[in-house]
């Protein structure tokens, strides 16, 4: 052994040990999923039921009614005739190019995933804003959720729940929940001290502070979070389709393996169209909620 061996050879675990380590982890997780997989699946049954119901409902509804509802929601959210016209044209193009059913499936899973993210994410963000310690604990978890390659967490999810809608939904949520948690937390922490001090001085209790002052004043940030969560959920559609989620991701996946350029492009653009509609509608709704911030006729 030469003296410089220390510098040239990487200190490495011996192969046998490494293999055993991996085997142990795999084995124990497999045991865990055999033990609890089924009860976990049962736990998610209501979500699955709702998702299937929504998908069927969207598919069973006549197409003109869906377009009317989309246009109506776009108008309620944005109050902009351009966004409404854009939405109608996009949906007509989607229908005409034969992507209607996939689009409805995608809409269903996006709606359910976003709802789930908001129901879990907003309260979590509120708790996080309340305690520095909790923030220090949750922030690294969110970092991991956002940066770990989606394929990596697909493995344990599939091992636990197999292939299907629920594991797809969970992986979409893992990817899409961080922004709403972060921005709820941030928004509440950024609420002006004076406004809160006034609430305290008049004897507001915790809930009066939270719902009367903190959340209303944090709304611009919370809305940015909702917007980001929807966008991220949409971008997970293709990956989710790898584990059996129906929707616009399926044809995209098929066109990758078969080199169907046109098919891939059309479905990809359909996802983009949905994203733009969601984005514009939620953004302008959020902006409209904040009208009072901008003073007119000052003085």
């Amino acid at each position: 052994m030469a003296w410089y061996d220390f510098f040239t050879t990487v200190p490495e675990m011996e192969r046998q040990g490494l293999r055993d380590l991996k085997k142990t982890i795999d084995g124990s997780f497999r045991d865990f999923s055999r033990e609890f997989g089924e009860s976990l699946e049962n736990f998610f049954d209501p979500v699955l039921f709702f998702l299937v119901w929504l998908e069927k409902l969207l598919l069973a509804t006549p197409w003109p009614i869906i377009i009317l509802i989309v246009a109506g929601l776009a108008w309620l959210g944005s109050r902009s005739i351009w966004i409404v016209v854009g939405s109608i044209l996009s949906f007509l193009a989607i229908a005409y190019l034969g992507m209607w059913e996939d689009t409805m499936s995608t809409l269903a899973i996006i709606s359910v995933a976003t709802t789930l993210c908001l129901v879990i994410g907003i309260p979590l963000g509120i708790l996080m804003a309340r305690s520095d310690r909790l923030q220090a604990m949750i922030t690294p978890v969110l970092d991991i959720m956002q940066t770990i390659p989606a394929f990596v967490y697909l493995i344990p999810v599939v091992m636990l729940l197999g292939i299907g809608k629920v594991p797809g939904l969970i992986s979409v949520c893992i990817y899409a929940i961080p922004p709403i948690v972060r921005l709820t937390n941030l928004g509440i922490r950024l609420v002006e001290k004076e406004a809160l001090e006034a609430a305290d001085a008049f004897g507001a209790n915790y809930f009066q502070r939270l719902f009367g002052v903190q959340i209303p004043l944090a709304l611009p940030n919370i809305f940015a979070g909702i917007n980001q969560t929807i966008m991220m959920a949409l971008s997970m559609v293709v990956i989710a389709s790898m584990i059996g989620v129906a929707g616009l991701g399926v044809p995209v996946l098929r066109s990758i393996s078969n080199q169907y350029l046109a098919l891939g492009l059309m479905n990809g653009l359909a996802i983009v169209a949905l994203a733009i509609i969601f984005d514009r509608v939620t953004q302008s709704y959020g902006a409209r909620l904040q009208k009072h911030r901008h003073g007119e006729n000052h003085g």
Partner: protein
Amino acid sequence: MADMKIQIKNLYKIFGQRPKSVLKHVQDGMSKTELLEKHGHVLGLKDINIDIPAKGVSVIMGLSGSGKSTLIRHINRLIEPTAGEMIVDGEDVLAMGKNKLRDFRRHKASMVFQKFGLHVHRTVAENAAYGLVVQGVKLEEAKKQSQKWVERVGLAGFEDHYPAQLSGGMQQRVGLARALATDAEILLMDEAFSALDPLIRTDMQDVLLGLQDELHKTIVFITHDLDEALRIGDSIAILRDGAVIQQGDPQDIIMHPADDYIVDFIQDINRGRVIRLRTLMDKGTSVEGPSLDQSLNLEEALQVVSNAPGKAANVIDGSGATIGSINLEQVIAGLSRPDVVTNPEARYR
């Protein structure tokens, strides 16, 4: 004087990691600088003892960093003290439990803030009603009840505007209406008018004095502006480096400043407008001449006194009875400034 509404007793506030552990040093007389250098704690308030009478305007004044805003936040306990008592109507606020403190803040003491502290997502009417809503009154009912205060502060017609649409002076009127709407007996005003332009400030002082003539609340008013303090204060306490250095009748502070710091402080005021006849008169004497009300200031009295044949006038109280007399020499002497005694080492400017 009247009964004491608020009594602040031996109040200490030290900011830092372990304030209780260094309290002893401060009580033994350690200075602010020494405390910071040796123990890394900041002395906020040191042995404050102030009695605040009911139904009067008590001004606490000091320059920035003197601890005045910290002090007023102890009255409704927005800041927890390190030691001491805060007796309001015979009850120690600092010993109150959570619910009791909340009730105290809801019903007994309301507050007006330097930066207004309005809720930008509420309209003027909703802001004014906020204190009532927190008490549990339904919004519509609360708006109805607070409407008279919105009108009283001169904001009729602006009920549906948002704070961002109003000027600073108008925003502070909303702050005032909000504080008045809860009918609390105590009004805490933390540099309430300091952020306003001079003209608007005078305006708001008039609004406050007008309201006080009617309402007779116990007002604790924080300011760094001596003219403002003299204009509205029935009594003044002057704070420096977290300690009270003089308190009492404003007239008394001007005539008998306790130390060089206060002498410097009162140097630039317009004595002719601040000093009143009752302060300078010879008590119990009377002369041949015109009669002047005791509350007139020297500027107002000067002309009359100098035109009087005897260069002197009687001073009368509100009922018209003569309570003393004053002559021209006294008036002129009153106008002259005290000697400047600025200590070259003074560091408060």
